[in-house]
């Protein structure tokens, strides 16, 4: 038996091995599923009862395991296989650059050198998170490792400050250059220990480290809403926060472009840098992937010099699957609780049996038009498909409802547009038997744009027109140029036109409860995805069954 203390090391080495050798690379084109007939997404809210259920065999798949003690416990369980992947998660501390002394770059860089990020992450997460130095998590295809890294060096931080004209009082408090008064006590805003115990602990450790170089800092725990309100109104000095990001780096524009420094905007730290703005605009409006890569790398290099944040860590995503299932798909960037696992898994022994999948919160409405709940989308993501899917290994685009696509820039200069041409898969049917055609795609995009539905607002607002020259071709012309339109349009779910026509009020639409407009005994929750909605019992479970007509089962 391997001692528990080695689990973090073993898991980490496994992850590194995956990254270096690609040994876990999975050919998604080989998947022809789903093989399972019944899927129950069972609601277990309490992490302790989730663990008991998994070990007892009442759950087959459990994702988002965050407590190191749980990972250790499952690691030693003979019935459970753990998977670990890098996550699109980034935790950082930020400065309010609108205020003195935080507008002093030397002070920010010295602060970054004073914080022992690696030690903090090691102490608090026991190896289940990785320290970061950059502004995109290491899993991102756009992550740039070659940036100016502020290694932990408190003496170096003091030297840097002294060279920049900072002095210290006899008590060791910093005095700004050209000033006689030392810094006044400042607060680091943080969620409370009750809500986020590890974050509160990290904040205390950061405050101690910064006190060590003369910044009179203490953590101020706040209720999350109060904290967000203070940040929205720029009423802060320093704060800590974590972002859940996506594979696309255009979040850098939202976080650091000067136009995003508005109330409720995400440039919370108030960074205004014209040179960086230019690079971020090049990223946001990149006509192709190559230009986007170049701009993303440049933006990360510039940000490391400007140091508006101190990046601290990125969380690993840990999932567990009972060993009586074969075909589990996990890669260095996708943990086992994913669509591909559901498409590929089958019992290693014995006959057919349902899969019990943990939902750690109640789905809110199962309304794909209005919900932004991740738990709703865990269900809806199996019912609705997009035109493109994301490769779990490379994070690149792969064909899904679209078998091919082109991204073109048409027009000249200021009149340039991105034109997306999608060739749709033939023979696909909706769960109610209707044929899937380009009309469905057009009606979906028109519906989302017409009603300005908040969830899709940013994705569809730049659509200029949608054309459907035939049943299996869709041409979407955008009002401007951006490579990211491909992911925004291609990644949005497609809804059946014949169902959308019956939606009276998108806000209160309850497709899981409304009867199908023409099919007796069916609901309006109709997609093209691998699973068909059968029943939602509030507080208990969502029952899905295999879509026997799913196009992937046909072997295409």
């Amino acid at each position, binding site marked *: 038996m391997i001692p528990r203390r080695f689990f973090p090391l073993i898991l980490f080495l496994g992850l590194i091995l995956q990254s270096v050798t690609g040994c876990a690379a999975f050919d998604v084109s080989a998947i022809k599923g789903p093989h399972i007939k019944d899927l*129950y997404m*069972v*609601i*277990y*809210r*309490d992490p*302790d*009862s989730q663990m*008991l*259920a998994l*070990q*007892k065999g*009442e759950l087959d798949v459990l994702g988002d395991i965050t407590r190191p003690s749980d990972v250790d416990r499952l690691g030693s369980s003979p019935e459970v296989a753990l998977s670990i992947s890098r996550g699109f998660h980034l935790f950082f501390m930020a400065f309010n650059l609108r205020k003195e002394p935080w507008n002093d770059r030397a002070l920010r860089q010295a602060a970054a050198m004073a914080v022992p990020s690696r030690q903090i992450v090691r102490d608090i997460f026991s190896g289940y998170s990785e320290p970061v130095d950059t502004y995109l998590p290491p899993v991102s295809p756009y992550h740039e490792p070659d940036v100016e890294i502020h290694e932990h060096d408190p003496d170096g931080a003091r030297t840097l400050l002294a060279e920049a004209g900072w002095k210290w009082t006899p008590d060791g408090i910093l005095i700004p250059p050209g000033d006689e008064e030392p810094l006044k006590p400042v607060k680091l805003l943080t969620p409370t220990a009750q809500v986020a115990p590890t974050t509160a602990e990290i904040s205390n450790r950061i405050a101690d480290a910064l006190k060590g170089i003369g910044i009179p800092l203490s953590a101020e725990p706040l*209720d*999350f*809403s*109060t904290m*967000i*309100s*203070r940040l*929205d109104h720029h009423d802060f000095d320093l704060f800590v*926060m974590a*972002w*859940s*990001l*996506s594979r696309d780096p255009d*979040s850098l524009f*939202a*976080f650091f472009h000067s136009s*995003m420094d*508005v*109330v*409720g*905007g*995400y440039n919370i730290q108030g960074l205004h840098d014209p040179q960086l703005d230019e690079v971020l605009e090049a990223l946001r409006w990149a006509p192709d992937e190559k230009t986007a890569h170049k701009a993303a790398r440049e933006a990360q290099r510039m940000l490391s010099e400007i140091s508006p944040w101190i990046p601290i860590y990125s969380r690993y995503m840990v999932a567990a699957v009972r060993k009586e299932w074969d075909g589990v798909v996990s890669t260095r960037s996708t943990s086992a609780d994913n669509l591909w696992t559901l498409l590929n898994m089958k019992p290693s022994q014995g006959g057919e049996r*349902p899969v*019990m999948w943990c939902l750690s919160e*109640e789905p*809110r*409405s199962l*309304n794909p038009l*209005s*919900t*932004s*709940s991740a738990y709703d989308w865990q269900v809806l993501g199996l019912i609705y498909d997009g035109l493109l899917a994301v490769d779990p290994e490379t994070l690149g685009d792969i064909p899904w409802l679209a078998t091919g696509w082109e991204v073109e820039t048409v027009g000249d200069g200021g009149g340039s547009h991105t034109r997306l041409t999608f060739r749709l898969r033939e023979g696909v049917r909706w769960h109610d038997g209707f044929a899937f055609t380009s009309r469905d795609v057009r009606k979906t995009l028109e519906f989302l744009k017409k009603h*300005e539905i*908040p*969830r899709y*607002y*940013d994705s569809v*607002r730049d659509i200029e027109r949608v054309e459907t020259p035939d049943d299996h071709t869709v041409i979407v012309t955008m009002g401007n140029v951006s490579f990211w339109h491909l992911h925004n349009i291609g990644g949005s779910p497609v809804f059946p036109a014949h169902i959308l026509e019956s939606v009276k009020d998108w*806000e*209160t639409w*309850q497709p899981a409860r409304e009867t199908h407009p023409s099919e007796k005994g069916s609901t309006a929750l109709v997609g093209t995805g691998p699973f068909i909605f059968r029943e939602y*019992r*509030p*507080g*208990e*479970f969502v*029952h899905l069954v295999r879509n026997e007509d799913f196009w992937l089962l046909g072997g295409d």
Partner: protein
Amino acid sequence: MKSYWSRRVLGAAAVLLLVIAANFFLFRIMPGDVVSTIIDPRFSPEAKERMREVFGLDLPMGRQFVIYVRRMLTFDFGISFLSQRPVWDELKSRVPNTVALLGSALILSSALGTWLGVKAARKRGGFTEKVVLLSGSISFSFPSFFVQLVLLLLFAYTFPVFPLRGSVSIPLPETGLARTLDYLWHLLLPAGSLVLLGFGSWAIYVRNLMVKTLGEDFILMARAKGLPESRILWNHAFRSALPPVLTLFLLALPGIVSGAVLTETVFSLHGVGKYLLDSILGHDYPAAGAAFYILGLLTIVSNLAADAAYALADPRIRVGRRVSS
């Protein structure tokens, strides 16, 4: 008497109006709103503004208040911001579970606690009293989540007599009777845990009341008359101690609708408690407003019922009646 009840009902109506107003303003005094809690770089400030329009949060405060009061008075609680479902539907799906769980726990723990309290008071310093005082103190001083997790570990995992979660088995049993039995089986462990956690305070409270009552002169008189001890205990002493117990019971009634957040979380139950907490934390004004309005209403009705029960339980109490000498 009539004017007393008129005053009480009018007072209750005034309190209800205050509750309605407080529900509106207190939630809006909290920093932020449902939209400001969305922190997602894929959700632009423009998209957030659009969401505020959808929720009616862009309307002037006075207009929002008028809409809200009309909704409360007509029991049309509107659409939940978080789930986009009618608040009534959300509550309706949760209240039966919560009432079944907390109602049964309240009845059983109060009955058990009262019986043990009376038994303990009967013989001061005896074994029964010592056991009741000790078990009662342990019962209400242990944290509920700890006790419930230990029970879950023991009786749903190590010795799997009860289910780990929820109120139904998966897949569902076929017949109606099987489903009812299945539901009761699921209810047993969470309700049992609440009884275990709740009976102690009842037992100690009733024991203290009874000890005091058993020392009264009228008990001495009853004993002097040679009445059987059990009759003295239940018909005289307990009857006299009953009004405060009844009041406590009636005032605990609204609690069976407000839910138990920790119990619902540990046993993954679909109840009002977690919904209420999520609504408050998520600034879901329609949901939180409606839930607190209903709770306020139940508290007011329970208070009125307690007044009425007081008079029924104790013939000496006839509020407002003139006593002619």
